[in-house]
C-alpha cells in the first residue's frame, strides 16, 4: 500500500511539474528601426504653407506594455529635405509645447520647412531624411486632384425637404469625382445655427446623419464610395433636434449649412484604412499589416484636401420649425 501511495505521489508531482508553463520569450533581440510621418493638409484656398515631418525610433520596454516607455523616441538632428518641383527645401528642427505630458514631458520635436510655399493638386512632393546614424528614409506623395461635386437636387432656394419627393426621391445625394481611384472620403453635412441665451446669440452646429436606423442616427464615418445620400427625414429630424424640447423656437436662428468632403490621397487612405478598419471582430489574427510608403522604415507621407461647399437653408423650411433666419 505504501508503494502505491509513493507511486501516486510521484505521479502527482510529475503532473504538477509538467503542468507548469514553459519559459517563453515572444521578443527577438532588439534592433532600432525608424518611423517617419508627414501629412499635407490643404483646403479649397491654396495659401502658401509650411510643411512638417516627424521622425521616431523604435524602442523596447521591460515586459510587453509599450505604454511604460517614457523616453521620447523622437529623432533629433536629422537632415531633412522637402523636394517639390525640383526645388529642395531644407527643413529645420522645430519645437512646440507638449500639452499632454502623461507619457513624455519635453517639447514636441518636428522638422518644418523654413519657407512658405504652395503645392497644388496632382503635384508630387518628396521627403529625404538622413538620420544622425546615416540611415536614410525617403517617401513620396501626390496631392489629390480637385473634386468635382454634384447634387441630385440643386435647391434653388436652399436646403429643404419640402420638394416633390415623388420626382426627386426621398434622399438628397451628393456625388463627387476626382478621376482617381482608391481614395478615402470623409463627407460631412453640418448645419450652423445660433441660440439666443443670456441676451446674446451664441454659435452652435449640428451634423446631419445620412439616415436613422432603429431610431439611432447613422453618420458615414468614411467611404471609398464617391457619393453619399441624406434622407430628407434625417434632415427634418436634425432640424427638430436643434431646439429639441425647447418650446421657445424663435430663440433659434439657422444660419447656413456646410458640406465638407475630405479627400485623402492614396497613401493616406490606405494608411487610415489599415489602422482603423477591421475585417471582423471574431477572427484571430497574429499580426497586422499597416500600410507604409516610407522606404527604409515605417510610417506614411500622405496628403488630403478639404473640399467645402457652403449651402443656404431654405427660409420657408427654417420657418416651418419655428426658427428665424
Amino acid at each position, binding site marked *: 500500500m505504501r508503494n502505491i501511495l509513493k507511486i501516486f505521489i510521484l505521479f502527482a508531482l510529475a503532473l504538477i511539474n509538467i503542468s507548469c508553463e514553459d519559459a517563453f520569450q515572444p521578443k527577438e533581440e532588439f534592433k532600432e528601426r525608424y518611423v517617419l510621418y508627414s501629412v499635407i493638409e490643404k483646403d479649397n484656398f491654396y495659401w502658401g504653407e509650411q510643411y512638417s515631418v516627424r521622425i521616431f525610433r523604435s524602442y523596447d520596454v521591460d515586459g510587453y506594455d509599450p505604454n511604460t*516607455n517614457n523616453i521620447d523616441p523622437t529623432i533629433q538632428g536629422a537632415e531633412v529635405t522637402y523636394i517639390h518641383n525640383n526645388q529642395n527645401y531644407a527643413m529645420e528642427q522645430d519645437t512646440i509645447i507638449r500639452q499632454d505630458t502623461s507619457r513624455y514631458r519635453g517639447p514636441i520635436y518636428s522638422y518644418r520647412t523654413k519657407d512658405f510655399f504652395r503645392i497644388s493638386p496632382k503635384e508630387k512632393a518628396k521627403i529625404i531624411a538622413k538620420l544622425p546614424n546615416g540611415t536614410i528614409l525617403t517617401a513620396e506623395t501626390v496631392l489629390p486632384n480637385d473634386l468635382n461635386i454634384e447634387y441630385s437636387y440643386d435647391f434653388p432656394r436652399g436646403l429643404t425637404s419640402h420638394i416633390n419627393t415623388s420626382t426627386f426621391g426621398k434622399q438628397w445625394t451628393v456625388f463627387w469625382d476626382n478621376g482617381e481611384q482608391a481614395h478615402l472620403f470623409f463627407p460631412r453635412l453640418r448645419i450652423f445655427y445660433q441660440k439666443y441665451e443670456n441676451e446674446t446669440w451664441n454659435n452652435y452646429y449640428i451634423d446631419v446623419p445620412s439616415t436613422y436606423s432603429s431610431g439611432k442616427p447613422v453618420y458615414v464615418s468614411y467611404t471609398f464610395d464617391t457619393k453619399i445620400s441624406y434622407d430628407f427625414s434625417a434632415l427634418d429630424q436634425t432640424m427638430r433636434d436643434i431646439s429639441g424640447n425647447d418650446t421657445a423656437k424663435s430663440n433659434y436662428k439657422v444660419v447656413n449649412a456646410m458640406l465638407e468632403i475630405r479627400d485623402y490621397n492614396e497613401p493616406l487612405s490606405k494608411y487610415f484604412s489599415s489602422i482603423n478598419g477591421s475585417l471582423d471582430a471574431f477572427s484571430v489574427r497574429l499580426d497586422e499589416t499597416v500600410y507604409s510608403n516610407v522606404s527604409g522604415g515605417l510610417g506614411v507621407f500622405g496628403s488630403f484636401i478639404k473640399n467645402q461647399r457652403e449651402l443656404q437653408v431654405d427660409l420657408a423650411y427654417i420657418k416651418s420649425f419655428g426658427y428665424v433666419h
Partner: protein
Amino acid sequence: MRPIKILSLLLLFSLELLAIDKGNIRGFVTDSLNGEPISYANVVVKGTRLGSSSDNKGYFFIAAVPSGKQTLRISYLGYETKEIEVDIPANEILQINVQIVKSSVLLKELNVIGERSAKENETDLGLQKISAKDIEMLPQSVESDIFKVLQASPGVSSTGDVTSRYYVRGGGSDQNLLLLNGVTIYNPFHALGIFSVVDPEMISVLEFYKGGFPSEYGGRLSSIANVVSKDGNKNNYSGSVNASFISGKAMVEGPIPHGSFIITGRKSYFSEVLKNYFNDKKVPFNFYDLSFKVNYSNPDFNNGKIILHGFISRDDLNNNDPKSEDYFVGNKLFGLNWYQIWGSPLMSNFSLSYSQYGAQVFPNLSTAKPRRNSVDDVSMNFDFTYMYQSKDELHFGLQNTFLSTDLILQNLYGANTNIASNGTMIKGYVNYKLYRYDNWGFDIGARMNFFSASKRRPFLFEPRINIIFRPINTLSLKAAIGRFSQEIVSLTNENELISIFEPWTIVPSYLDPPEATHFILGAEYYLNESFSLQVEGYYKLLSSLFDLNPRKFSARDYDYINISGRAYGIEGLIKYQFGSVYVQSSYTLSWAFKENRDIVTIPRYDVRHSINFLAGISLGAGWEVNSNWSFNSGMPFRPIAGYYDRLMINPWESNYLFGDYVPVTYWSETNNKRLPYYHRLDLSISKDFRISKADVSLGASIINVYNHKNVFYFNKDSGEKVYMLPFFPSATLKVKI
C-alpha cells in the same frame, strides 16, 4: 478510338487467364442487426491464399476460386467471425450476401487492430481507414470530431486545440478535400472551425488519403477524406438521441420497401461552452446540420442500388447589435448515386450531385469589411471497376463538374475584390491495379483533365504509380509517386488562427493552377494480429501555390500571387494490443517551407516533431477507458522586434502630425521563432448498458488532464499570452432505441 482499343485489349487479356475449373465469388457483407454494409471486412477462402476485403459499400469480389465446395471465412473487428460453406460453380460468378453478428455489447473486448487485410498486395500507401470505433476511442472535448481523429494521425498537424483545421504533410488547409458520399463539402467546419460539420453519428467509414492517392481522386494537392455515411437500418425502425454540453443530436432510421433510410440532425443550444475556445467571450453562435440518406435496392434491379442523400449545415453569428457585424456560412449538398453490379465482374457507379457553399459577413454599422462568397458545384461522374480473373482490377471513369464561384470583399486597405468565375471541368481517369502476383502489387494510372476551369492550363496530365513488394510474409515495402493539381483555392490567411471567412474561388486567369508531386516510400511490418509497425517517408514538391497578395492596395492589384513550396518528413506508427489493452504510438519528423521570390518562410503549421500516444482498455461489463497524449514542437510565430509610436488620425481634426500617437508593436520577420513545446493528456471513460429496450452510453472526458498551459498565440497589442484549452471536463449521453 485508342482508349477503347486499349480497354478491349485489357478485357481480352483477362479472358485468356480464365481457368476452366475456377469460378468467382462476389457479394455484400452486412451487419445482421441493421443491414448496414460492413466496409473492409475480410473474406477469405479457407485453406487457400485467396481472399479479398469488402469496399466502402460492403462489396467484395474473389476471382479464380477452385470450383466445388469451399469454406468462406468472414471477419471484421468488433464482429463475430463467420464461416459458411459454398459450392462454387466453374466459370460462373457465385453471388453471396453475408450477414455478420456484432460482438455482445457488454462482453466485447477492445478490438482495434483486427486482422490484416486479406488483400495483402493492395497498394494503399498513405491510406488510413477510419471506423466509427477509431472516432470513439479519442477523448472528445465537447463534440466527438472526425477531424480531431485525423489530427492524431502521423503527418497531420493543426495550429491549436480550438481549431479542427488540419494540415497534411506540409500542405495548406485548402489542399484537403472532404467528400461526403463522393460530394465535396466546401465548408467542413462549425463554429469558426472548432469542429467538423460531419456528425460522427452518421459515419459508416472514413477513408483518409494522406498522399499518393489513386487517380480516381483529384482536385486537391494534399489529402482526400472520403466520408461514407450509414445506409440506415434495413430491418427495424430505431432512433437515438445524444446530448453534449453544446448540442443535441437525434437520429432516426428504418426500413422502406427494398431499402432503408436514415436522418440525422444536430442543433446547438448552448454556446456558453464555446467561451473556453475564444478570447472574445461573447460569441453568439448558432448552428445546425441535417443529413439524410435513402437507399433502394429492388431485386428486379439485379444487384443495382440507388441512393439519394443530402446534407445541409449552417452557422450564424448574430450580434443583434446594429453596430456589430453578423455572419453566416452554410453548405447545401444533394446527391444521387446508382451502383450497378453487372453480369460480368464489372461494377459501375453513376452519380449526380450538387454542392453549394455560401458565406457572408454583414458589417451593419461596424467597421468590419463587407465580404461575400458563394460556390455552386454541379457534378456528374461515371466510374467503372472491372475485376479480372487474375485478381487484377481496372478502374476507369469520367468526371464532369460545372463550377461557379462568386467573391466580393474589401481588404483592410479598402481595396475591393470582385471575382465572378465559372468553368467546366471534364476529367478522365484510368487505373490498372496489378494484383495477380502474390508478392507484388502495382497500381498504375493517370488522371487527365481534358477541360480545366483554369484558363492558363486547359489540359493537365497527372500520372500516378503505386508499388508494393512483400519480400517476406510479414513485411511490405511500398512506394508511390504521383502528380496532383487543384483548380479551386481558398483565400486563407495563414496568420488567422481563427477565421470567420475563408472564401473559395476558381484559379484566376492570371495565375497557374497549384500543382504538387508526391514521392512516398513506406514499409509495414505486421507480426501478428497484436502488433504492426508502419514507417512512411515523403517528399512533396509544390508549385504555383496561392498566397494572398500582401501588397493589394487597390482594386486593380491582383488578389493572389503564385508561390512555391516543399515539404518532407518521416512518420512511424506502432499498433499493439495485448488482451483488452490497446496501444497506438506515432512519431513524425517533418519540414515545410514556402518560397516567394527567393524568400523562404516556414508556415505556421510546420511541426518539426510530433508524438502521439493513444491507449485504451476495456474493463468489461461495458466499461472502457481511453487516453491520448500529444506532444508537438511549438508553432512558428512572428516575434516582437520592438515598439513604436503610431500616428492615429482623427479625420476631422487639423494638424494630424501633432495629434494622437499610440504605442504599438514593431513586428519582426515572419515565423522566425517558435512557441514552446505543446503537450496535453486527455482521458475518457464510457459505460455502455441497457435499460429496458434502450442501449445507453454514458461518457465523460477530461481534456488537458494536467492543465498544461499550451500557448496558442500572444496578443499582438499587449504581448499577453493566450492559451489553448485548459483542464476541461465534459460529458455525453447517448440513448439508442
